[in-house]
């Protein structure tokens, strides 16, 4: 079966700036795929080329077996796109907004109202979109992208400007959407978001994909020591060091960085020093650091 999205050696420059510089990737059907990178990495440009909004300077994109450029009428009803939380008609209520989008796809108003319920906005249906909170506007925007039940959904920075609580709520919604069997592609500059949501991520920087794969696999490949920490004072530094690994103690927590977690955990258990136990592995931020040699800053 061919890939749902197939991108091959994509390039796009604005003047001297190579916004997308030789990007290739594939997305399988039903996958939750994330394009991850700091602002200005070229994520949005890549996504917009795949959506068929921009013409690449070179390279090919096929979406659901069809070329993305030029604009393809047969493709449009099969994809859903969320560009920005405020891509709404002015001064319409949430219900009018989604019903307008529904009718553009010849979808009955009933489905639109159901979709409002799916994203939890039934209570705000009569509210003008200008009055919605950031999280509500974002959910409405996603609902408008989903109203015609597309096979493939594109989301550009869906949690961009949201507070942590609203982000968590949106993650639940996105997982729900992905579980329904749709292919979802999102861009994000939040490492934790990509790690938590995506089946597979492509890490982008300066217009290039540095690495792609399942978040857990990317982290495992790093082979970075685990950090095991317990409450200070349960075990002495010397004792801890003997378990294998380098020890730091800041008076609150005693941490052991080790590549042999079994031995360390066994030792801590037999010393009855497990109170406040935390085990932390490397994250995608560490992957980014090792790939670029610099700290990740969104």
């Amino acid at each position, binding site marked *: 079966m061919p890939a749902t999205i197939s991108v091959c050696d994509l390039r796009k420059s604005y003047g001297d700036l190579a916004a997308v510089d030789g990007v290739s990737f594939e997305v399988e059907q039903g996958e939750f795929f994330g394009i991850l990178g700091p602002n200005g990495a070229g994520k949005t440009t890549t996504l917009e080329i795949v959506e068929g909004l921009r013409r690449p300077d070179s390279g090919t994109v096929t979406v659901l077996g069809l070329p993305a450029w030029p604009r393809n*009428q047969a493709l449009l009803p099969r994809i859903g796109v969320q560009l*920005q939380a405020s891509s709404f008609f002015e001064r319409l209520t949430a219900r*009018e907004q989604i019903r307008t989008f529904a009718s553009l796809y010849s979808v009955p108003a009933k489905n639109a109202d159901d979709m409002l319920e799916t994203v939890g906005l039934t209570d705000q249906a009569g509210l003008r979109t200008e009055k919605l909170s950031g999280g509500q506007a974002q959910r409405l925007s996603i609902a408008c992208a989903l109203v015609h039940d597309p096979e493939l959904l594109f989301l550009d920075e869906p949690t961009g400007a949201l507070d942590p609580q609203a982000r968590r709520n949106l993650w639940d919604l996105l997982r729900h959407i992905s579980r329904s069997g749709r292919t979802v592609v999102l861009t994000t500059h939040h490492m934790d978001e990509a790690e938590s949501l995506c089946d597979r991520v492509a890490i982008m920087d300066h217009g290039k994909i540095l690495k792609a794969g399942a978040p857990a696999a990317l982290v495992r490949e790093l082979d970075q020591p685990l950090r095991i920490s317990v409450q200070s004072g349960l075990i002495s530094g010397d004792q801890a060091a003997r378990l294998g690994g380098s020890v730091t103690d800041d008076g609150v927590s005693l941490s052991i960085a080790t590549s042999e977690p079994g031995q360390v955990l066994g030792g801590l258990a037999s010393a009855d020093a497990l109170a406040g136990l935390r085990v932390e592995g490397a994250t995608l931020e560490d992957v980014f650091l090792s790939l670029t040699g610099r700290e990740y800053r969104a």
Partner: protein
Amino acid sequence: MRGGGFASLSRAMFLGFVRDRAAMIFSILLPVLFLVFFGSIYRNSSAPKINLIEVGQVELLRTARQADPALSKVLAISHARSQAVALADVRKGTDDAAVWQVGNHIVVRYSITDQTKAGLVNSVLGSIVQDANLAVSGKPPRFTLTASQVEDKSLKAIQYFTPGLLGWALASGAAFGAAITLVTWRQNKLLRRLRLAPVSTGAIVAARIGIAVAIGLIQLAVFLAIARLPYFGLQLTASWWMTIPMVACGILAFMSIGLLVGAIAKTQQAATSIVNLVILPMAFLGGAFIPLDFAPDWVRQASYAMPLRYLVTGMQNVMARGEGPAAALPAIGILLAFTLVVSLIAVRMFRWDDI
């Protein structure tokens, strides 16, 4: 699929307009206030009345008023005890002229602060004296004069400035609407979002034009309803219905200006300023605020370069001057040609987004 898109887009745009307080104020409320304001000021401008102050008894005035009752429509006569009081009143402007009689000699003193009234005083009293002389001679007059204006008697001020102010209202409504919508939709990426929906660009453009023309016709209806109130007294002439296609063509012309501005401007503020810079001088130079017949020559020359001129004069011709339907055709042709040229430029300048 296309039909559904057109209908729902039209609905969304119309709701967006009627819920937009600023748009309602600028395209309907403000022009209507202007209409009511000008309408009230110039309601009787066709026959200014002269306030004449009479010192003592002027026998000639009394006989003239008995002979011609219509004279009291032009002259309002009051009395003063002394010449000094009467002259003081004329200087202050409470009265327009003072008159007294010395033997067979009639003396009139007037102020030239209002030259129209000064001229009227001279000619009215002059003709009273002439008539009296003629009556004394006992001969029938050999020459007579019949004077009347070329326009229909009903061509009062309201007939001029209803089309003028309406033209301004249509122009600013259409230009602002198109410019602001384009800039806003580009900024919030709705333009691109619609590009990814299965609706044709034609359906989007047709919906926008349809709504703009509908708004223009609402403006027309509101203007006619108010100007035709007996208080203002607008008289529509036979081919007034040609105003409807004129409104549609005017809307197209000014939408194209709005599209061009929307293609150039990056922010709503910039779009608003540019449209103001274009429309407001055009309203003065194109005969919307000042009737071109009364305007200085250079304004009349400049007006030929203003699309608003053709909209305003075209509407005046068919709705107030009583000309036939064909009188609107040259204006319609010019407006459509203007629309075509400006739209082509706007399409060339068009950008999907700000990058």
